[in-house]
């Protein structure tokens, strides 16, 4: 299984360990992720204003670079932007013409745009994954936190049931963890409000964490660097039992029996390809 891979800025910065753990786990699972050459930032937010075509240039260039072949990303925001840009290219001929003419590329919305979780579910299969797990995370009580960007708008993202998703719980099951379901797992963490409106983020994040804790979780997994930042930094936690936040890939790599050293090495190996980007 070979895929084009779009890392995005955060995975080369604050979220390096999401990339390194994914790369290591993917290799162990026989999934090859080939980083696109000379990729650019996706823009981080999908433009909801229809005449903001300029912000579509970068994601469409990325989509075109995949040449119609499957394109995988890890960061929820990158995946959201790419997927929605693809849908716009399929739906809106005028926008497509303007953008592709400007970029001088030929792109009409073709190719699968996948989040790595979808690769695990749809292409590899969680059953197969479960068989390949070397160190099941027995007894670890983990809850999934989905956030917004992977799920909504569900008509476009087509990732999972937007109100009652199961993909991350299925992953946790496959790697042997004890799944804890928290009712707040699809509520927004406050996203970039943590930059400007910390009080809001504190409110949303505290609810999410408390809900997971009350449900019996010791840890949370997420697929979004910003969610993770907020979950780790914004909750009011005075005196409560702490909850550890992981990227899903960290637990996946751990279940694949990959040691910290190995992860670091593979992270270092990946370094060279990230040079010269941005």
């Amino acid at each position, binding site marked *: 299984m070979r895929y084009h891979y779009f890392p995005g800025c955060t995975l080369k910065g604050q979220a390096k360990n999401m990339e390194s753990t994914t790369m290591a786990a993917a290799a162990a699972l026989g999934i090859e992720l080939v980083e696109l050459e000379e990729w650019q930032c996706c823009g981080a*937010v999908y433009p909801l204003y229809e005449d903001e075509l300029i912000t579509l240039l970068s994601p469409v260039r990325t989509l075109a670079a995949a040449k119609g072949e499957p394109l995988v990303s890890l960061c929820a925001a990158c995946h959201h932007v790419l997927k929605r840009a693809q849908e716009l290219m399929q739906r809106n001929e005028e926008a497509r013409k303007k953008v592709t003419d400007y970029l001088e590329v030929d792109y009409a919305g073709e190719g699968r745009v996948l989040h790595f979780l979808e690769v695990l579910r749809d292409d590899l299969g969680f059953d197969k994954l479960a068989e390949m797990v070397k160190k099941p995370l027995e007894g670890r009580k983990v809850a999934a936190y989905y956030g917004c960007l992977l799920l909504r708008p569900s008509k476009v993202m087509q990732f999972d049931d937007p109100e009652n998703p199961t993909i991350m719980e299925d992953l946790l099951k496959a790697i042997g963890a004890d799944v804890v379901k928290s009712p707040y797992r699809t*509520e*927004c963490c406050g*996203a*970039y409000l943590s930059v*400007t409106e910390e009080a809001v983020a504190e*409110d949303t994040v505290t609810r999410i964490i408390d809900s997971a804790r009350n449900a019996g979780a010791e840890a949370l997994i997420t697929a*979004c660097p910003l969610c993770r930042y907020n979950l780790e*930094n914004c909750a009011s936690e005075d005196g409560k039992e702490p909850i550890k936040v992981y990227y899903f890939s960290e637990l996946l790599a751990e279940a694949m029996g990959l040691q910290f050293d190995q992860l670091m090495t593979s992270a270092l190996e990946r370094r060279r390809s990230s040079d010269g980007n941005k």
Partner: protein
Amino acid sequence: MATSNKTRLVDEMKMQSGQDPNECYQCAKCSAACPVTAAMDLLPHQVIRYLQLGFEEDLAKSNTPWICASCFTCAARCPRDLDLARMMEGIRLVMLRRREGNKFGPADLTPEQLEKLPQQALVSGFRKYNK
């Protein structure tokens, strides 16, 4: 207080977002679904009501469009199939384009924040609050 429902803000927002506030029947499900109402001075459904009635000046003063985190929960649950996240973005852009300069920039961040925040947050934030 303007009471005409044909204001520039509404017209431009409608054209750009493809959303017609008149399709809303004020069930307020968006407000019930919104995770960040605590800091808003107008609830999401009130923003639509103000759009319906053309209360443009009040909307210009409201912090609600700037609090909206574009989590799309309102749009996912709206029984009228309206995308309020798009309307909010519409209002923000109209305001930003009218305004001189940006609402928020790197200078507004502490060195500590710059060090710690994921790149994604910085890019998103600048995108949302800047021209």
